[in-house]
């Protein structure tokens, strides 16, 4: 992977993609009729949210693979994804109120998607806290994988339960079936922007993964060194 698609090329691609996305966000996409310019944060906000969600889906599958195959790599992928996904999820929680204040007049409301994002954010925190508080190295990966699986089940339940909850929020705007009415240029901008976010996400993920692997190699070298010196 590193040979065929080196990190520097990946980074260059990410930057280029973001330039295109920014161009589309500010120059190509039409201005929204009621919300005006401020609506353009939508192209940052929504892709962040989708990417944060993608992150938890990856954690779920990596956790399942770990539980079945006990693969170290799957465990490392889950850990790295959680850290990167958490950043994107935090991004959603920051851009959300920034958008809500001028449009709704309030920073925060327990709107369906805000609630979902906040719960997802809490799950990320719980998962990462567990990672750093575990004291039994023999069980650490197993326990995190179990929480990864239960956490994802919870995400699915969130999506169902929010529909049962005393609903008052607007129905889904995008992919909400016929008549949900979004300008094709807006949709194109959104998708390109999401692509840029995913590209960035995977760049950060592979860098975090490489860092983790370098860390464990270093630890192993230190240990061998300590062993060698204690023998003499």
């Amino acid at each position, binding site marked *: 992977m590193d040979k065929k698609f080196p990190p520097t090329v990946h980074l260059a691609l990410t930057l280029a993609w973001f330039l295109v996305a920014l161009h589309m966000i500010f120059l190509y996409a039409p201005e929204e009729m009621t919300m005006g310019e401020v609506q353009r944060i939508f192209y940052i906000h929504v892709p962040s949210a989708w990417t944060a969600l993608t992150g938890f889906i990856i954690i779920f599958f990596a956790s399942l693979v770990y539980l079945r195959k*006990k693969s*170290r790599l799957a465990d490392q992928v889950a850990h790295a994804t959680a850290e990167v996904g958490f950043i994107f999820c935090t991004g959603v929680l920051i851009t959300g109120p920034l958008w809500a204040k001028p449009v709704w007049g309030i920073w925060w409301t327990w709107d369906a998607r805000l609630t979902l994002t906040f719960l997802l954010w809490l799950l990320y925190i719980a998962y990462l806290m567990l990672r750093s508080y575990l004291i039994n*190295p*023999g069980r*650490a*990966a197993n326990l995190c994988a179990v929480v990864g699986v239960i956490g994802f089940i919870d995400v699915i339940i969130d999506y169902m339960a929010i529909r049962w909850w005393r609903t008052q929020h607007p129905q889904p705007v995008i992919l909400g079936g016929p008549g949900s009415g979004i300008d094709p240029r807006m949709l194109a901008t959104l998708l390109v922007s999401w692509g840029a976010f995913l590209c960035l996400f995977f760049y950060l993920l592979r860098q975090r993964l490489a860092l983790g692997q370098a860390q*464990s*190699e270093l*630890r*192993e070298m230190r*240990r061998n060194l300590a*062993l060698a010196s*204690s023998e003499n």
Partner: protein
Amino acid sequence: MLPETPRAELRLEVRGVSKFFGDHAALREVQLEVSPGDAVLLYGANGAGKTTLLRLMASLARPTSGEVLFAGRDITQEAAAAKSAIGFASHATLLYNELSVRENLEFFGMLFGLKDLQVRVDHELDRFGLRDRERVLVRELSRGLQQRVSLARALLHDPLFLLLDEPFTGLDRRSTEQLEALLKQRPEQGKAVVFSTHNFQQGAALAQRLVALEAGRVRYNGPLVQAPLEALGITPDTEAMHA
């Protein structure tokens, strides 16, 4: 449970086992076979992998690679048969502080599904001289007595293989003598014992076979009398370094 298997084939085998904790290798490519009647001393410094090896053999932990077999079958696959044949005691007593000695033994005996539970409990209580304390809560016992109850718990289902991790630590003199007698007696009855200790001399008097571990690898596995003690860095009267 495995009636058709002759006793001599009821071996406990560790085959090419490595165990990693994160990226730390606690055991590397360990090979070991224990047959009924064996008395094996596991010897090595702290961190050599003694505890990990015993825990793997007791199916408390799974190997990262390699396998642990009982009667030729993976102990995690044939868990019920293997667990009924294995007794394990370690530094942690695995006893409930809020239950009495007898209640603890009865509880674990019931989990093993023992038929003649009361007889067995009485037998173990007598063996370890705990009869007069059977109603005392474990919390109120001294460390040495708790260790005795823990041994009684490990022996309750009369396991073919008795695995003991540092069983002499914290034992008073009388308990030590009882344990030594037990470790001598089991192999004579055709049962196996595998135990680890820091005190080489004490262990050597009770075992026929020595398995010396160093940094997760088996340095020696063979008859104790033939062991190249000097090459292994063991002088008969020393204790292993607390590395």
